[in-house]
C-alpha cells in the first residue's frame, strides 16, 4: 500500500465523507426549539392566569420547574430522544434538553445500583455544563462585588 500517502487519504475522507444536511438540520432545530420556547411562554402565561398574585420572578422560576419536569418526563417515557433525533440542537439547547441530559444517564445506569449507578453517572453529560455555570456565576459574583 505505497501508492497512497497519509495526507492524501485524510483529504479524501474529509472531502468525501457524508455531511450533515445543513439546511434541514437548522430548520428543524429552529422550529422545534422555537416551539419549545413557545410552550414555555404558554406555561408562564397560564401560571400568571391561575396565580395572579405571583411575582414576575416566581413565575419565571415555576415555568422553569414545569419545563424541566416536562423534559424529564418525556425522557423517561422515551419520547425526547426521538424528538432529539429530529431536531438536534433545537431540543438540546432549551432547559428541557438539559433535563434530558441528566435523566437519560440516570435511567441508563439504573442497573448499576443507586449509589455508583444513578447518582454517580447522572452528571456524565451535564457535568461540564454545571461546572461552567457555577464557575461563571462565581466570577460574575466577584466582579459584581467590586462594581
Amino acid at each position, binding site marked *: *500500500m505505497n*501508492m*497512497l500517502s*497519509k495526507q492524501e*487519504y*485524510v483529504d*479524501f*475522507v474529509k472531502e*468525501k*465523507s*457524508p*455531511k*450533515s*444536511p445543513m439546511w434541514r*438540520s437548522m430548520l428543524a432545530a429552529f422550529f422545534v426549539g422555537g416551539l419549545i420556547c413557545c410552550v414555555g411562554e404558554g406555561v408562564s402565561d397560564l401560571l400568571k392566569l391561575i396565580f395572579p398574585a405571583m411575582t414576575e420572578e416566581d413565575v419565571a422560576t415555576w415555568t422553569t420547574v414545569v419545563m424541566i419536569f416536562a423534559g424529564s418526563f418525556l*425522557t*423517561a417515557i*422515551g419520547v*425526547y*430522544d*426521538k*424528538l*432529539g*433525533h429530529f*431536531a*438536534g440542537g433545537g*431540543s*438540546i439547547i432549551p432547559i428541557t*434538553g438539559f433535563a*434530558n*441530559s441528566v*435523566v*437519560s*444517564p440516570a*435511567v*441508563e*445506569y439504573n*442497573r448499576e445500583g443507586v449509589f455508583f449507578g444513578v447518582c454517580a453517572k447522572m452528571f*456524565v*453529560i451535564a457535568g461540564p455544563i454545571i461546572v461552567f455555570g457555577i464557575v461563571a456565576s462565581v466570577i460574575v459574583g466577584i466582579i459584581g462585588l467590586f462594581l
Partner: protein
Amino acid sequence: MKAGKQSFYVDNPVYIRSAYTIVGPKEGESNFDGCFDLVLKNDLWGEKSFEKAESKMHREAIRGAVCLAGLNFDEIDMMLAGDLLNEISASSLAMRYFQVPFVGLYNACSTFSESILLGSALIDAGCARTVTCSTSSHFASAERQYRYPLELGNQRTPTSQWTVTGAGCTVLTANRPTREEDKRARESFEEKLTAMRTENMSNGVCGSEKEQEKGSEEANGKKIKHSNISEGAAKSAKTPFSFRKKEDDRVAPQCDKFYERTRLAKITGGTFGKVVDLGIEDESNMGGAMAPAAADTFFAHLEDTKSSPSDYDAIFTGDLGRFGKEAFEYILSKEGIKLCGTYTDCGASYFKPEQKTFQGGSGAGCVNTVFNGYILKKLENGTLRKVLVLATGALLNKDTPLQKETIPGISHAFVVETEDF
C-alpha cells in the same frame, strides 16, 4: 503452512461443521431477513440489562451451534470467543456455563475472523480437533459503552454506523462429517438443545442465577427440575398467569435448518492483518478508519497467496459501511485493482435504507451473523465456491480519541472453499 509474510494455508482440512446465529428484532427485519436461526422480539431477552442479554445471546448461540453439529460439550476442545464489551465480559460470563477451555479474543469487530483463523490454525496443527468460534455485539450495550445513553436526545452523525445486535457461533472440526450424521444432528436438534440446558443446570453451573431466571412459583416448589429456558409451551401451560412472557421474547426459528447442503465448506487459509493507521481522528467515522486496514490485508493476501481478485467468487469486507466501502474501493483503485460485482460489504448491505442506520451495520456480530447466516448457506448450496472474508475492526476505546489519538484499524482475512458433501 506459512505463505509469504502474513498468510498461511491449512494443510489438514478444517471443516465448518455447523453455524448458529441469534439476532435482535431490527436485524430480523433487515436485508438478511430469513437467514438467521433465531430472531428475538425483544432485545433484552427477559434479562435485567443489555449486557446480560448479550451474554445470554452469546451462550445460546454456542449451544445452538454445538447442538446443530450433533456434538456434546465434552467433544469440544476449545472455545474461541470475543465481543466488544469491557474485558470481553459477554463472552467470559457466557463461558461459565461450559466446562471447556476458553480462549478470549479481542480485535474489535474483526474478532470473528481472528477466531476463525486461530481456530483453523489450532486444528491444522493438531492442537485441537473441534473448536467453536463465537462473537457477539449488542446495540444498546455498545452504545452505552462507546457513546451516549440511549435516551439522550442527540443526533447521530451521517458517518455513524449501527452496532448489530447479534451473536453467532461457528463450529470448526477436523473430522469430516457425513451426510447421515449431519441429517441426524439436525433432526434431533430441538431435543438435544433442551436436554443440554437441563443437564447444565443439574450440574449446578451457576445454579443461583438459573433460579433467578425461573418463575418464582417454580423456584419455591420443585427446584431445578426442568429447564427454565425450554419455556414456551411447557411453561405457559404450567403457569397461565405468568407475567414474564418469555415465549414472547423470541420468535420461531426463521431459517430452515434442513436447507439443502450439497457442498461442505472448509477453511483453506487466511491472512493476519497489521494495524494500519492513516490518521483518521473522527471516532464516528470508523469506516474511514478501517478501510486502509482492509486494503492492506487484502494486498498482503493477494501477494502472499499469489492470487488475484478474480480467483474469488465473492469478496466480503466486514463492517466498513457505505462510506468505508467507497474508501476501500478508492484505495484499491489507487493500486490499480478494480473489483467488479464480486465485492460486498456486510455492514453496508445489512440494513435497509428505511431503517435509518446511515452507514449500515457494524460490531463483532455484524460480519459473524452475515457469514454464518448468509454466506455459509450460499457456500453450502453451491452458489459460491470460493470466498474471501475480510472482517475489519477499529481499535479504539472511549478514552483514546479524547487523548487525541488517531484510530488504528485492523483486518484479518480468511478463505472459505467448498467440496462435495
